[in-house]
């Protein structure tokens, strides 16, 4: 499987993602510069964390106009897997590829710590190797991770089961105390209607190997590989 990791000026987690998919999972990975107008032979696009274009104006606002984003959009429209982590999630929501918006954390502070996430569904390309209802421990590192969507949209998202990860406590209960940033409906990650574009604020790329004390993030990357293998098998 081949991952394409988009690098914007200001991205800073592209090597974390590269390390996970290449060295830990043993798959192929290439960096794609944001000015590339096209790419080919890629099975999954990852938009990594960081501060694309300095996060000027709003997080993700300028990245959306990078030449590569046109190709990323087309790739998604053809059903390609697109995975946005942290700043990548912000870029996808600004680009209109995911619903809602990410605004300043309710407590105003930049937060860098572990949180618990409840996996709301197993039937996505990003969570196929994780049981629904499982609780993952994954770090966050963001100042603008408060998920916002108008009431009608939130209702729609819940009905269509587009919330994939929710902030929760260690037992999987969604409580106000367990919500680090004030996200509405405790949303930590959403998928598009078609199910091939996922954005999440927490960083599975930062907890995918033993030496870091936590390997739970690896299961998300393994799920992506599993989904790709299944899709390939179905094609053959």
């Amino acid at each position, binding site marked *: 499987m081949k991952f394409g990791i988009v690098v914007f000026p200001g991205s800073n987690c592209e090597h974390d993602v590269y390390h996970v998919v290449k060295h830990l999972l043993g798959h192929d990975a290439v960096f794609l510069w944001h000015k590339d107008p096209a790419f080919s032979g890629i099975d999954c696009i990852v938009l990594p964390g960081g501060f694309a274009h300095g996060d000027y104006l709003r997080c993700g606002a300028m990245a959306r106009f990078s030449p590569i984003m046109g190709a990323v959009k087309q790739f998604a429209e053809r059903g390609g897997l697109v995975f946005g982590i942290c700043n990548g999630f912000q870029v996808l929501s600004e680009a209109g590829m995911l619903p809602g*918006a990410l*605004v300043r*954390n309710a407590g*105003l502070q930049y937060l860098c710590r572990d949180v618990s996430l409840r996996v709301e569904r197993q039937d996505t390309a990003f969570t196929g190797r994780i049981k629904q209802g499982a609780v993952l421990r994954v770090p966050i590192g963001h100042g603008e991770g408060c998920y*916002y969507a*108008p009431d009608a949209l939130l209702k729609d998202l819940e009905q269509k089961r587009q919330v994939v990860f929710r902030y929760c406590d260690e037992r999987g209960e969604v409580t106000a105390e367990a919500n680090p940033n004030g996200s509405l409906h405790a949303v930590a990650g959403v998928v598009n209607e078609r199910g091939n574009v996922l954005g999440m604020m927490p960083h599975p790329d930062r907890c995918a190997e033993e030496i870091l004390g936590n390997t739970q993030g690896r299961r998300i990357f393994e799920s992506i590989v599993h989904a790709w293998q299944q899709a390939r098998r179905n094609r053959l």
Partner: protein
Amino acid sequence: MKARVFVTLKRGVLDPQGKAVCTSLHQLGYREVTDVRIGKCMEVTLGGLPRQEAERRLKAMCEKLLANPVIEDYRFEFLDE
């Protein structure tokens, strides 16, 4: 031609910065303050366009980039030179 664009969070979108400033004003003794909302102000200089056309294009700029319609409202005014 200069225009001033104001971008503010929609009603209903939490504005923690505004809340913090409101609390600080209370601590300074300005108890009459009941709410503070913080936004952005941008000065945009446009060249060589008739006013009506500039207005039309500025509206498009706001909708495409300067404001995010999911969370923000915008308005603008032209400044007399």
